[in-house]
């Protein structure tokens, strides 16, 4: 029965989404590939998958070592997102490997990567390629003897209750997460140099990452530097969610913050939130409409740009007061905040500096959790033409006078000289 139904449905969807798959116009993902190392996960995490399906995603479940795995066919990708729920897979089946996954991400697609109390080198490799380093000790898990989740059957304090969320409505949604998130798994540290990684959920100061069985040597990461869940937004705005625990997404832990946490963050990862686009960049001299090919120094110009945010179904005007434009030549000469009419249009006007050269209108808009906007538009600024300088300056009247008087004198002189006797 399921076979009868699923196959044509999938094909139909494939054809349907060829046209409107992941794209600049419609950034929300549609087709997700879920890699598991045990199909039982489909039932054990069914609530999470059910949520995804309810959001209109088409999930395709595959064993991670399925020999027929392939992300792309005929050079273009079959999926918009990849969910890797197979912490223990040593090598993927089929044509898939670490490089393929990273290419998938570099092609602008999204990734959810869950390790667990064990993570294979493959998973670690992918994570560290994205700037997230799981604890090298393969037996280490996050332990917190102070902030653990009280339960009568778990004595190891490896199931910890973390509530140190990142403060961002874009990533975690407007609704605050009251209950702490129950986490059992391994911690990681984010590359401090990387500006792309964000710790979404970090452990409490008393936590540490070590193996509960063996005696403790100096742990590699401790305290709140332990990241439990991190997100990465690549420069091409591909988003990645890297979690140290697969357990986080599972059906158990009712009456904890997990469900809200994972659903909200998944919305973000799959571009239902915080995806901006800028259109209609226009600039022109004041009181003109046509965009000039070149400005003159000291011109007054007007600049405007429209910014919209993807709401998951449509483009809504983006409202903020901190969008800035730079008039840039090797360094910003003018840097102004744009004023907005709450309908997505941002505009300002300023005077071109009295320095000529090839300038750029730069809008570098990077905000926590939003896709980064960076547009630059080149525009030359020329000096005055020879006949554009000020003339008839009163200060110069005497000089004018002198010149003309000499001319007059010359004229008179010619007459006098010739005909004098």
């Amino acid at each position, binding site marked *: 029965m399921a076979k009868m139904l699923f196959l044509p449905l999938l094909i139909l969807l494939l054809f349907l989404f060829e046209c409107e798959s992941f794209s600049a116009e419609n950034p929300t993902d549609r087709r997700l590939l879920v890699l598991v190392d045990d199909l039982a996960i489909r039932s054990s995490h069914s609530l999470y998958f059910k949520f995804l399906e309810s959001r209109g995603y088409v999930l395709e479940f595959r064993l991670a070592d399925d020999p027929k795995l392939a992300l792309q066919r005929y050079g273009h990708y079959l999926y918009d997102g990849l969910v890797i729920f197979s912490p223990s897979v040593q090598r993927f089946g089929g044509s898939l490997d670490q490089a393929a996954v990273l290419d998938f991400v570099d092609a602008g697609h999204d990734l959810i990567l869950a390790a667990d109390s064990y993570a294979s080198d493959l998973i670690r490799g992918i994570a560290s390629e994205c700037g997230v380093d799981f604890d090298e000790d393969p037996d280490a898990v996050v332990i917190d003897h102070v902030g653990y989740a009280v339960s009568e059957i778990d004595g190891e304090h490896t199931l910890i209750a973390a509530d140190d969320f990142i403060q961002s409505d874009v990533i975690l949604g407007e609704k605050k997460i009251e209950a702490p998130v129950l986490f059992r798994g391994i911690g990681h540290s984010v590359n401090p140099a990387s500006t792309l990684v964000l710790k979404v959920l970090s452990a409490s100061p008393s936590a540490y990452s070590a193996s509960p069985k063996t005696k403790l040597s100096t742990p590699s990461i401790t305290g709140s530097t332990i990241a439990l869940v991190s997100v990465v937004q690549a420069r091409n705005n591909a988003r990645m969610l890297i979690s140290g625990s697969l357990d986080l997404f599972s059906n158990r832990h009712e009456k904890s913050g997990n469900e809200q946490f994972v659903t909200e963050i998944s919305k973000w990862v799959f571009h239902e939130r915080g995806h901006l686009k800028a259109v209609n960049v226009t600039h022109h001299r004041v009181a003109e409409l046509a965009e000039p090919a070149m400005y003159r120094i000291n011109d007054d110009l007007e600049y405007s740009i429209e910014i919209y945010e993807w709401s998951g179904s449509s483009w809504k005007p983006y409202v903020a007061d901190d969008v800035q434009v730079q008039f840039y030549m090797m360094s910003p000469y003018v840097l102004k905040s744009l004023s907005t009419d709450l309908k997505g249009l941002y505009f300002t006007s300023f005077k071109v500096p009295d320095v000529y050269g090839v300038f750029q209108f730069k809008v570098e808009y990077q905000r926590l959790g939003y896709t980064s906007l960076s547009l630059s538009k080149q525009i030359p600024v020329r000096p005055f033409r020879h006949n554009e300088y000020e003339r008839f300056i009163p200060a110069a009247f005497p*000089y004018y006078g002198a010149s003309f008087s000499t001319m007059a004198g010359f004229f008179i002189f010619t007459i006098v*000289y010739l005909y004098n006797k």
Partner: protein
Amino acid sequence: MAKSTSSDVLTLIRSLRSAYAATPTNLKVVYMGIVGSFPFNSFLSGVLSCVGTAVLAVCLRIQVNKENKEFKDLPPERAFADFVLCNLVLHLVIMNFLG
């Protein structure tokens, strides 16, 4: 006889003229001293116009001076024509440079 007088008169006129042409120069230099040389091109053209005319006048005077033996074979009319041409060029340039 009449000839000589006329030449004297001419000499006088010319010296007068060169003197006259020189005065505005000093004037302007003073002025510049006061207000600074902002429209420098105007200043330059102003000064040089006066200097130029003065110089040219002097040249003319030299050429038509009868005592000067060097220019016997140069008729004063031709000298004058050159003078006019030179002046016209000078003033053209000055006008262009006056801004």
